[in-house]
Structures are given as structure tokens and as C-alpha cells.
């Protein structure tokens, strides 16, 4: 169990404990004010907002997944790509669109702000929910899939909904964990989250109090995560049928899906319009585009490496049935990235050899730790979908062969989309990048934030378009992977 936990032990727990000791988080005199009641209220309100957003995002993703998997119609591949790639549209662009609609509403200020925050978070994360649930659908048992296709369309959709219910609950749980450290989107709506409060403590020099607040939040959520990693009684699944033969054509489903992708299309068109250079700017715009592509090109393999290692660790722990291990893997996800990054910088950087210090080694390690919940969830679902008969058959082989030659290939339809989401998260990560990236290291997400802040809209739109194209490519790869089934 220790080997797959090494990245998270080295990249999170050891530095966190050492910094907590250095900052005297556990000193006797500090115990009198462990966490103020107001801070606890912020923790609870964060959980409330994030839970609502996770549920709404899952609901949207569930409808998308059921309609995409259970019906057929024109341009489905294109719709899928548009839906999934919208995850890489800059949060600030999404936030300003939501604020434009919600901000001027007549709702009471606090309700309006919270509603705005929930809407922003759920719209941003609905594509991830759709991806997770489509991955679960793609592993539907062959016999069940055939039976569903012989039912009347309405009944079949309801049956699919029931079948996906356990996966949807787990998906909502995963989104809850991924959304907990959210600070940026809620702040656009004027809502404070616990991550903001922790960071505020650090910026004004109350490091110990920031750490204590982080620990309270982790402690509160341990039982929830432990519950999420309990083995469910999901049916063993096999590869799906990749032909559309037998799926119903439902005109209302087509209309719904067209309407559903309309905001993403509108946002991409606005980006395209903004990015389009004037005659005098063509050369500069071309150079910016080349720079953006090359900086993403340089970052992509590193993001892929971080994501693959994290997901493999999650799968390995799930495959071995190590619930405590999965719990340990999940915890770093719930804290703001800055906390882990500060701890790593303080504890390891003084001793790193110069050649390693010039590489984004610590950054990659920290980002890997931040993918813990995704890795645990990906590994968990991938293990659940393996048919019991195959699992038993695999036991007849040596453990290494059974793991890497039998169980891992069978888990790939779930693990590959998880790697794709992980790559998108690493490329969009800002907090650890700001603290740990070596000078001169390219970061598209950081550049995008700076451009948006100073209203360099045209440059930001060009960069965002490149990111959206990357999102489309990832979505295309993921879609192909689902089509292959096993």
C-alpha cells in the first residue's frame, strides 16, 4: 500500500506536518482559540454552497449522459466535444456571463450572491459530471444494454436513469471534494469560502490559524470520504455496444441537446470574435498564437505525466481495496493548493540540488497531490466496473500479470477520461504554479488570469481559444476511448 501513497506522503503529509510543527499549530497556548465560531460558520456555508453546486452539476451531467448514451441523432460527436471542451473556457469569462444575468436580478443580495456562486460552480463542473457518468455508461453490461434497446424509449431512459443512480451519487461526492477548495468562482459572486479565509489568514501573517482551520475542515470531511470509498453493490459490468443500432431517435432529446450546447457555442463565438485581429495586429496576433501553442505544448507532457501517475496511484489503491489509502489520497484535494505549495517550498526547496530546483519538480509533485480525489474516484469506479467473473479468473494468474495485463486494461475506459480531466485541471492550476514554478516556466492559466485582470481581452481570447481547442482534442480522445469500450 505504501508505494502508491509515496507521492502524497512526500508531496503533502510530511511537509504539512513539519510546517505545522514549525508554525506551532499544536502549541498549548494556541489551543484556546482552535477555530472561532464565525470560521466554523464559513466552513458550513462553504459545504452548503458546494453541496448544492455538486448536486446541480451532477443533475445536469446526468441528463446529458443519459440523452447522449440512450438516444441517437445528428451531430452527437460534435455535441459531446462542445460539451466537454467547455470545461477549459476561462472561469472569469463564465463568471462575467453569469454575473451579467444574476447580478442585476431582484433577488435579495445574499440569496443572489449564493445563487450566482452555485450557478457558476455547477455550470463549470457539469461537463466533468457528464464525462464521469458517460464513462460509467460506457461500461454498461452488454446484455442489459441490449435489453434496454428493446424497451419503449421513455421506459428505457427511466431505466438508464435508475441504473446510473449509484454512479451519480458517487459523482456528486467527488465533485463535492473537488469543489471544496474553490475560491475564485465564488469570489466573483461576492461569496466567501473557507479556502479564501485560510488564504486570508496566511496573507495577514496568521499562518497557524490558517493551518488550524484547514485541519478542522479536513477532520469534518474524513467520515464523508470514508463513506464514499466504501464498496457499493454495483453490478459487474462489461464492455458496451458501440453501435447506435437499436437506440431511439427522440426529437425532443435533439432539441434539448442543441439548446444545452448553445451557451458553450455562444461563448466560443464571442472568444473567436474578440480574438480576431485587426489588420494592423495580424503579425502580433500570429506570434501570440504561436507562443500560446508552444507554451501549452511544453506544459502538456508534464501535465500528462502528473495526471497519469496520480490516476495510476488511485487505481492501484482501489484495486487493492485500501480504503484508508484512498482516504489519505483524497484529503489534499480539499485544501487550497497554496497551503501544500508553501509547505513544500519551505521544507524541500532549501535542500534541492540546483538542477532539480530549476525544473518544475516540486510543482509537479504538488499538482499530483491535488488530483488525489479524482485519482481515488477514477480508480474506485474502474475497479467496480470489472465483472466478478473476470476478477476471479485473474486470481489464477500471478498478482503482477493479473494486475497489469488483465485488470488495468479493463479499467482503461474509466482511467483514460480521468487522466484527461486531470490534464485539464493541471493546465488550469494557478495557486501552486504561482508559488512553485521556476522563473521563466510557462503557465497558460497564470497568463490568462493576468490578461483578464488587466483587460487585455483580445490576447486573453486568443489564449482561451487555444485552450478550448485543446479541450476539444482531449474530448475527442476520450470519446474514441469510450467507443472502443473494452
Amino acid at each position, binding site marked *: 500500500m505504501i508505494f502508491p501513497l509515496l507521492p502524497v506522503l512526500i508531496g503533502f503529509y510530511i511537509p504539512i506536518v513539519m510546517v505545522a510543527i514549525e508554525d506551532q499549530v499544536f502549541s498549548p497556548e494556541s489551543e484556546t482559540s482552535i477555530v472561532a465560531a464565525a470560521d466554523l460558520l464559513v466552513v458550513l456555508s462553504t459545504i452548503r454552497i458546494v453541496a448544492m453546486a455538486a448536486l446541480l452539476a451532477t443533475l445536469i451531467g446526468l441528463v446529458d449522459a443519459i440523452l447522449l448514451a440512450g438516444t441517437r441523432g445528428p451531430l452527437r460527436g460534435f455535441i459531446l466535444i462542445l460539451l466537454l471542451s467547455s470545461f477549459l473556457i476561462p472561469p472569469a469569462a463564465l463568471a462575467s456571463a453569469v454575473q451579467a444575468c444574476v447580478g442585476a436580478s431582484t433577488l435579495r443580495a445574499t440569496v443572489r450572491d449564493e445563487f450566482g456562486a452555485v450557478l457558476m460552480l455547477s455550470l463549470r463542473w457539469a461537463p466533468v459530471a457528464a464525462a464521469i457518468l458517460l464513462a460509467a455508461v460506457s461500461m454498461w453490461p452488454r446484455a442489459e444494454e441490449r435489453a434496454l434497446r428493446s424497451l419503449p424509449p421513455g421506459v428505457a431512459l427511466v431505466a438508464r436513469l435508475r441504473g446510473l443512480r449509484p454512479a451519480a451519487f458517487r459523482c456528486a461526492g467527488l465533485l463535492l471534494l473537488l469543489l471544496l477548495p474553490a475560491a475564485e468562482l465564488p469570489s*466573483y459572486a461576492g461569496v466567501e469560502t473557507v479556502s479564501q*479565509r485560510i488564504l*486570508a489568514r496566511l496573507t495577514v501573517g496568521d499562518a497557524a490559524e490558517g493551518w488550524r482551520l484547514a485541519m478542522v475542515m479536513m477532520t469534518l470531511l474524513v467520515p464523508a470520504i470514508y463513506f464514499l470509498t466504501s464498496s457499493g453493490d454495483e453490478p459487474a459490468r462489461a464492455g458496451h455496444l458501440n453501435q447506435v443500432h437499436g437506440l431511439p431517435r427522440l426529437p425532443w432529446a435533439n432539441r434539448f441537446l442543441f439548446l444545452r450546447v448553445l451557451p458553450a457555442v455562444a461563448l466560443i463565438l464571442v472568444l473567436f470574435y474578440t480574438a480576431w485581429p485587426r489588420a494592423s495586429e495580424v503579425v502580433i496576433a500570429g506570434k501570440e498564437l504561436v507562443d500560446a501553442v508552444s507554451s501549452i505544448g*511544453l506544459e502538456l507532457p508534464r501535465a500528462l505525466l502528473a495526471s497519469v501517475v496520480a490516476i495510476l496511484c488511485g487505481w492501484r489503491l482501489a484495486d487493492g481495496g485500501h480504503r484508508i489509502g484512498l482516504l489519505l489520497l483524497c484529503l489534499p484535494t480539499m485544501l487550497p493548493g497554496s497551503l501544500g505549495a508553501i509547505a513544500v*517550498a519551505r521544507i524541500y526547496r532549501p535542500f534541492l540540488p540546483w538542477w532539480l530546483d530549476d525544473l518544475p519538480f516540486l510543482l509537479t509533485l504538488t499538482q499530483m497531490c491535488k488530483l488525489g480525489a479524482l485519482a481515488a474516484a477514477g480508480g474506485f469506479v474502474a475497479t467496480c466496473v470489472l465483472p466478478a467473473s473476470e476478477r476471479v479468473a485473474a486470481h489464477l494468474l500471478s498478482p503482477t500479470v493479473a494486475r497489469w495485463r488483465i485488470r488495468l486494461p479493463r479499467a482503461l475506459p474509466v482511467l483514460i477520461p480521468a487522466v484527461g480531466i486531470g490534464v485539464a485541471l493541471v493546465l488550469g492550476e494557478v495557486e501552486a504554479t504561482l508559488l512553485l514554478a521556476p522563473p521563466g516556466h510557462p503557465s497558460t492559466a497564470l497568463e490568462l*488570469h493576468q490578461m483578464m485582470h*488587466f483587460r487585455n481581452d483580445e490576447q486573453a481570447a486568443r489564449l482561451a481559444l487555444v485552450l478550448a481547442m485543446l479541450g476539444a482534442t482531449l474530448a475527442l480522445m476520450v470519446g474514441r476511448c469510450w467507443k472502443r469500450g473494452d
Partner: protein
Amino acid sequence: MIRRWIWGFALLVWLVIWLNSHFSTDARSVTIYCSHDRSHSQQILDRFEKETGIVVDAVFDTEATKTVGLTERIRSEQKRPRCDVHWSNEPLRAVQLAQEGHYDTLPEGAGPGIDSRWRDAGNLWCGFAARARVVATHPESLASAAIPRSVKGLIDRSLSGKVVMADPRFGTTGSHLAILRVTLGAQRYRELLQGWKDNRIQIASSNSSSRDRVLSGEAWVGLTDTDDVEVVRRRGASIGEGFLEEDGVILLPNVVAVVKGCPHPEEANELARWLLREEVEEWLANSPSRQIPLRTEVPVMASGLSLSRFEPLEIDWSEAAGQLHEAVREAERILLNP
């Protein structure tokens, strides 16, 4: 088989390019952590690079994500600094870093002509090119007719629910509050915050978000900085601006400091001295960030702002930095707690 070779070759090419991008062979280089607007500061750093041949590796800050930022990065790198020069766009956090012993003394003669009230007595930091705290107003609102001239004006009932400010714990808003706490005293400061709270003040994520809410009409008055207003004005947006002259205009200068134990001390001194030249203030004054030169002799274009136009508030930087913690905690307790 051929496919594998192609993949292997592609991986090798990427590895070579990637390693090359991280291991620079240049003999002279300097690393700067810069929280000033990237689009303007990058041009200035490029000029330095061109003039001196010293390669500048810059790390820029971002406000919108609520990260802990470059100040915390300098703290976390204390045992092995990576940064040579710190260019902070607001003074109080820099003063705190100086008090904590993160800065070395600036080179002799750096920042000639800059008054002593804009620099550290021990020569650990020096200010240049300031921003002013202002109120931005929506042009079609009642507030544009009678722009508040004091922070107390934001308590006016006619502005109930229509005033916005950035999260008081970050950036220049935190500094503004610390300075208010020093000038008003703790009790009156808390009363002011309570007045804002009672008047249902909106809290946005950053100064630029405050400005955007004013632009959209969601708020009529926004507490922000001059550069945030100017950036959108130059893009054709219509937005009003008023200086809080009854309180005394708060000018927050950029600050340059050399980090103690930095890896390139010679180059760091050269860059610090270069950044504190008159020309840099002039460029910043005429850029879309419309900074205010701290030397009265620096020429400013007609639409720019010069020091002689204001009656700047006298600020004890050490005292204000010392009060930052309490000011922010009280603002959090009164304005933000549920």
C-alpha cells in the same frame, strides 16, 4: 514498430526543448518577482534587458484568483531565495517583508530625487510611481452627480446596496483600511466599517471586479485604484472617478527592494537602480496604468496625474503595516462574517 520509434523520437525532441527552456546558459541574469501589471512592467523589463544585456526572469502576480501571491512566495523561500528583486505594487506588504528581515539594503544612490517619505529610513525599500485610491462611479447613476469625497460618504442612505469594494483582506483595499485605521483610530474605524455594513456594501473579488460591477451598473460607486479606472477608459468605457480629498488622497507607491541572500546580488542592484530612474516613472505615468510619479519634475501628459495635483495623506508606513493585521481582521469580522 515505426509508430513506437516516432513516439520515442517525439518524446526525445520534447525533452530536449523542455530542458533547454529551463537551463539557461546566459552568464548574467536576474530574477524579479513583480506584482505590477504585466503588460506594462514586461515592456520596462525588456528595455532593461536590451540596455544592459542582463537576462530578466520575471514571475508575475495575479490578483483575481485569491492566491497568497508573491509576498508569501518570498517568505516561503527565505532559507534559499530565488528572487533577486521584488517589485511590489503596494507598499504595506513590502514594509512587512522588510520588518521580517527579507530585504537587503538598496544600492547607494538608488532613486535620486524621491522624497524620504516614500522610502525606508534604513534604505531597505524605495517607492516610485504611485496609484491613488479613488471612487469609480457609474455615469448614469445618482452618484455621478455627487461623487463622494470621503469614505464616510459611502454610508449615505441614498447609496444603500449600491457601493462595492474589493475583498478587504487582499491587495490595496487591505492597505487602504490599515491606513484608515491609523488615521481614524480603532474605535472610529470600527464604526465606519459598521456603517458600511449597515448600508449593505457589496464585496467583490478584486478592485477590477469592483470596477466591472460599477461599469455594469450593478453598483453605482466602487472603491478602487486609479489604474483600474484608466485601463477601461482607454478602451472607450464611460466611468466616473473621484478622489477622496476630504480624507486626504491616499497614494500607494510601487516599491522596489533587493532580497537578502539573493543569488545574483550584483545584477539585482543594477536592476533596482535602473527601475528607480526617472524614465521608468515617466513610462509608467504615460502608460494605461496612469501611475503618479513621485518626483515632481517628471513630465506627465495632459490626461495623466501628477503629484502636484493632490494633497497626499502623510502616512507612517511602519505604523500602517503594523495595523494591517488588526484592520483586516476587524474588516473580516464586521463586513464578511455570516
